[in-house]
């Protein structure tokens, strides 16, 4: 038995994958009622007659959800419909209070978008088509292992606004799926429409996968794979399911249409319990909600106010800041980091130095402390000020690193810290000259040997001056003074 799943490239089959991504929108209140969407509240705290589906309750649509959903659809290049319809998707489940989910079916919010995930060999953009973006409400949570013999239902999440982004079956490998998801997530981060936290469930992925022989046009029978809790999980699950389907087809059998669940611990997919008859959701337009009508003008305004998107930002960083591809990738991966970098660079007037420090000290600190940028105590203006002090010679590079660490701890400004800790470099010529004299007086023999040609002894004298100065001497100037002594 092979240990590695056959990859799409080295067999006669290719995988054909479509991904359905559910994203929770970061509104204050739920899609159809004023209950808070705040995560982590006591069970059923955020519920009301509407999201509890009490008899007689009715839905009223959240305008911020419409705004965020439209933003996402436009950023994905989709056509936003001037009229879209909410439909009921009917099924029974204890965390679905009404016995139906309000979603969209025949006339969704947006259709026909795409996401570029890279370039083809000929340089043309590799696009994954997006069939539709639609709005729907989330269900509550079922907790099966909290109390013995019963399932516990928490409806705090019931009614939270979601968008569902459905891709065309254009994905041909697990790596492409991973790229699609990472780039989609980045785009949505730039748009600031969601917390996008897979652990908290604000981002979920389901996959539809079939196989076919390379070169074949017809699609095979697809299966649905669920329960993937990370992007790498998606990649592994797709490879596992691909291998399973290949084995079946190679053995001459047919693929059965079914739903499979990914088991990350075992690294396998297995069928969900067989259901009597597939789901018949009996979709029909929700009579409690007239159609959602958006004007061309309003849609245009949302488009106008879209923030700078990743591609545009990457291009601008290349042109404006003249940064290289690697630096751009790191700095634009996260929109907040890019904004932080630009603020520092703008204040300092030196993108390269700013880039190095942000990619270096700042990112390392964030990683080590687990902080996020919005809580980071070092303000861009202060970091710029620190870097300015280095450029001006007021502090050495190594002193600057110490000052930075103290800025992270205290949030104080660099000038204050430098003074308090006595880290300001000494650049005063007279003082430096005095220290140089003292050192040379103390080591005349070594000085003679240096003058005689043992150039590496320079470091000894510089080191001695640094020690005498308590680390505060400006090393450049010390070098200059020693050079002048040597020649003069």
């Amino acid at each position, binding site marked *: 038995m092979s240990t590695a799943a056959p990859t799409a490239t080295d067999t006669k089959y290719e995988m054909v994958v479509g991904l359905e991504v559910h994203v929770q929108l970061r509104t204050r209140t739920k899609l159809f009622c*004023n*209950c808070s969407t705040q995560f982590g509240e006591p*069970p059923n705290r955020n519920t*009301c007659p509407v999201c509890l589906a009490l008899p007689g309750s009715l839905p*009223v649509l959240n305008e911020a959800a419409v705004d965020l959903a439209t933003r996402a659809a436009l950023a994905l290049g989709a056509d936003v419909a001037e009229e879209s319809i909410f439909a009921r998707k009917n099924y029974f489940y204890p965390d679905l209070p009404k016995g139906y989910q309000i979603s969209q079916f025949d006339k969704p919010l947006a259709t026909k978008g795409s996401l570029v995930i890279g370039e083809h060999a000929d340089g043309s953009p590799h696009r994954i088509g997006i069939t539709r973006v639609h709005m729907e409400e989330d269900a509550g949570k079922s907790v099966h292992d909290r109390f013995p*013999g019963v399932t516990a239902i928490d409806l705090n999440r019931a009614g939270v606004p979601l968008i569902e982004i459905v891709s065309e079956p254009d994905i041909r490998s697990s790596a492409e799926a991973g790229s699609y998801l990472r780039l989609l997530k980045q785009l949505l981060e730039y748009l600031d429409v969601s917390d996008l936290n897979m652990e908290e469930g604000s981002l979920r992925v389901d996959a539809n996968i079939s196989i076919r022989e390379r070169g074949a046009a017809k699609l095979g029978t697809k299966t649905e794979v669920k329960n993937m809790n990370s992007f790498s999980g998606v990649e592994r699950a797709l490879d596992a399911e691909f291998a399973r389907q290949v084995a079946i087809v190679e053995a001459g059998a047919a693929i059965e249409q079914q739903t499979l669940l990914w088991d990350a611990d075992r690294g396998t997919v297995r069928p969900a319990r067989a259901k009597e008859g597939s789901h018949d959701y009996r979709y029909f337009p929700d009579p409690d909600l007239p159609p959602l009508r958006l004007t061309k003008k309003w849609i245009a305004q949302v488009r106008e106010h879209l923030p700078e998107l990743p591609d545009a930002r990457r291009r601008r960083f290349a042109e404006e800041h003249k940064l290289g591809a690697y630096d751009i990738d790191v700095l634009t991966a996260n929109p907040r980091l890019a904004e932080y970098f630009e603020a520092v660079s703008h204040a300092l007037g030196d993108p390269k130095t700013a880039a190095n420090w942000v990619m270096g000290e700042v990112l390392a600190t964030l990683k080590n402390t687990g902080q996020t940028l919005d809580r980071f105590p070092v303000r861009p203006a202060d970091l710029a000020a620190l870097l300015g002090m280095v450029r001006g010679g007021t502090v050495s590079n190594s002193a600057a690193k110490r000052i930075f660490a103290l800025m992270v701890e205290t949030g104080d400004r660099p000038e204050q810290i430098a003074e308090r800790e006595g880290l300001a470099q000494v650049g005063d010529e007279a003082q430096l000259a005095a220290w140089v004299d003292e050192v040379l007086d103390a080591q005349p023999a070594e000085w003679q040997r240096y003058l005689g040609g043992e150039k590496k002894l320079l470091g000894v004298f510089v080191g001695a001056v640094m020690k005498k100065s308590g680390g505060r001497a400006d090393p450049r100037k010390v070098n200059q003074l020693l050079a002048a002594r040597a020649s003069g």
Partner: protein
Amino acid sequence: MSVTEKEVLHVATLARLGLDPARIPTIAAELNGILAHMDVLSKVDTSNVGPVTGIGAAGTPLRVDGGNQIPLARPRDAFAPAMREAFFLVPRLATHEDGAAESP
């Protein structure tokens, strides 16, 4: 169009109605009696008219994202059949995985 007893059972399952199997033939007959009257609709020419999709030219009203939660005059456990530690309780589904499958 007529409904078979198998279809009645299927529909009852979709609707979680728990019909007494002994009553299914009678119910099928009743439904067929009613549905027979609906056949007249299939003969109507509706090519020039779209379905009724809800009133008002303005479309669905939009609510500001904020404001107060609709209050309940009574705590949830006053009307809930089974609650514990603020969770609603139902008989356990067979396994967690099955739960994930039931919920599309």
